[in-house]
């Protein structure tokens, strides 16, 4: 039996369920103590294949990121937080000051230099992709510790662009 605290767009629920050793795809879970029936048809396959779930006869087509930071249904995209309430290590993650390319593209301009103080949300670079210029902004306030790219440079997704201390 796992006890998971789940927050969906700010609403928190305590969910109890048992998946270990189950061969079937139907199970009973408890949400804040109330039982709900769950049918998770693709539970046997790999996690990404799970695009559909039925909770108390209500079907949902879903997509989610591997880290479970978000979950998408036909009605919208929602922020998730999930943690095992009985696990020892349940610290929330901290963002660090490393700024990475969110999409592949080309750096068209670098707007800051090393040693410069930046405010949270301040533009750091401009990245062109899909014919659009996208400002890459500081995720937090600090001082620019490193700039790893220059204008004209093509970058891959997740490539480190700048660091803020």
């Amino acid at each position, binding site marked *: 039996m796992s006890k*998971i605290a*789940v927050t*969906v*767009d700010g*609403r928190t*629920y305590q*969910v109890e*369920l048992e*998946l270990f050793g189950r061969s079937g795809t139907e199970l009973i*879970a408890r*949400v804040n103590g109330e039982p*709900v029936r*769950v049918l*998770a048809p693709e*539970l046997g396959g*790999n*996690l*990404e294949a*799970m*695009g559909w*779930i039925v*909770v*108390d006869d*209500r079907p*949902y*087509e879903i*997509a*989610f990121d*591997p*880290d*479970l930071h978000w*979950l*998408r249904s*036909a*009605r*919208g*995209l*929602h922020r*998730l937080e*999930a*943690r*095992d309430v009985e*696990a020892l*290590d349940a610290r929330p*993650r*901290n963002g*660090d000051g490393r700024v990475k390319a*969110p*999409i*592949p*593209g080309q750096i*068209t301009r670098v707007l800051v230099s090393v040693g410069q103080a930046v405010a949270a949300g301040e533009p750091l670079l401009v990245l*062109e*992709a*899909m*014919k*659009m*210029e996208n*400002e890459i902004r500081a995720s937090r306030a600090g001082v620019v510790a490193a700039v790893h790219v220059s204008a004209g440079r093509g970058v891959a997704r*997740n490539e480190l662009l700048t660091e803020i201390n």
Partner: protein
Amino acid sequence: MFRKMLIANRGEIAVRIERTCREMGIQTVALYEAADRRSLHVRLADECVPLNSPQGFLDGQAILEIAQAKGVDAIHPGYGYLAEEASFIRACNEADIVFIGPPAVVVERVRHKIDTLRRARAAGFPTVEYAPTIFDADDLAGDDGRALHEAVAHLGYPVVIKSCSGGRGRGERLVWSADRLLEAARRAQAEAQAVYGNRRVYLERAILPAHQVGVQIVADEYGRLIHLGEREGSVQYGSRKVIEEAPAPCLTQPQREHLWQTALDLARLFEYQNVGTVEFLVDGSGQFYFTEFKARIQVEHPLTEMVAQVDLVREQLRLAAGEPLTLEQAGVQLKGWGVLAHVNAEDPWQRFLPGPGRLQRVRLPGGPGVRVDSYVYSGCDVPAAYDPLVAKLVAWAADRPQTVERLRRALAETVLVGTPVNLSLLRRILGTPEVAAGTYTTEFLARPLPDEEQPESYWRDLAVTAAVLYVRRNQAFHPAVPERTLSGWHQDSRRLPQ
């Protein structure tokens, strides 16, 4: 009719053109750059040729060479790229290849936006206010934009910076005050360069709030000319249209008929030929102002195809082949209502960051009154190098409320998993009172959208879903490793989180 056509475009519009060609028995040659080779337009063509040029679809020379090597007798430019390039049309003509669109002389008459406005105004048509100066790169670099500021002085703020090559809102910037003018102009130029290969921009006085309305025109080379009604594209974000419809809900029937007549008169003034659109801004009182011609097929053309029941690409081909217009104005019956949604691979909640990648799951909507134009399918790529438009969903029904509900239904059954998409934004826009009433203007999306109400069971069910995913993930991938160390973020980390 033509035997073999090269399509000098990609994505959904290339697919659209291939469909009509196949129905007309015309062989097609598709072009693709490496990242785009899994797109549907490459698969549906009779032949597909890699396009290896740094300028891509803007390289008329390279494209013409392929066309000649493949022995085509016509080239369709789609929209954007080479669609309104008179020099390319002339090069096609010299190579004895028919260009699908207006003749070079017609494009030259209407492509220069400021000259077009001047000529229309001289003939007594109402036009937007504009500054009679074109800004090329050098005009901005040298003098910190003094010429720009002078141009605005005659208009007053707000102004719109528009690409001279125009279209699709790209390279367009709305500016409210002098301190943002220079940067906005630079951005508009950079975007115009990226999209059209030409950084020239000009200034118009902004009309706010406004409605953006275009009248579809079809004309042959023998002077026959009809309209197929109007479309409104006022639901925009970042100057890009996201929901469009036909007819325009902002117009009364007398206003609509006056607009049609004005568009026909303007088309006659410029001796327009082939398929095109006469564009207007409409203010809050229903007054309209001519802005420009679009001398090509437009992204939103399916709306007109649905309410007028005409195949516009077929008409383009017939007219370019020199055939006379067979449609008659009296025979055109505009029926029902169409609404179109632009489904983009982008994240509206992350400042519309484009989202290239692989679409693992694609399920497009169907059933009554729904049309989909798209280049995607399960397992295809959304390349980073192009426009984020992945699909156009069009709904048609007998009246406007049914049509809006039908489009909402179509959106609800659409599945696109693998890249961020704007589906939930479209859903929310279509759920607003402004769209329900048809009273929105170009300012509509500048205000925040109301949150959608969801029943408590929805949140509870998603929480259960998330818990199942959480337990399942930890179980399957790494039962012994703490969850914190597993994300991609930390795995490639050079230092541990603080």
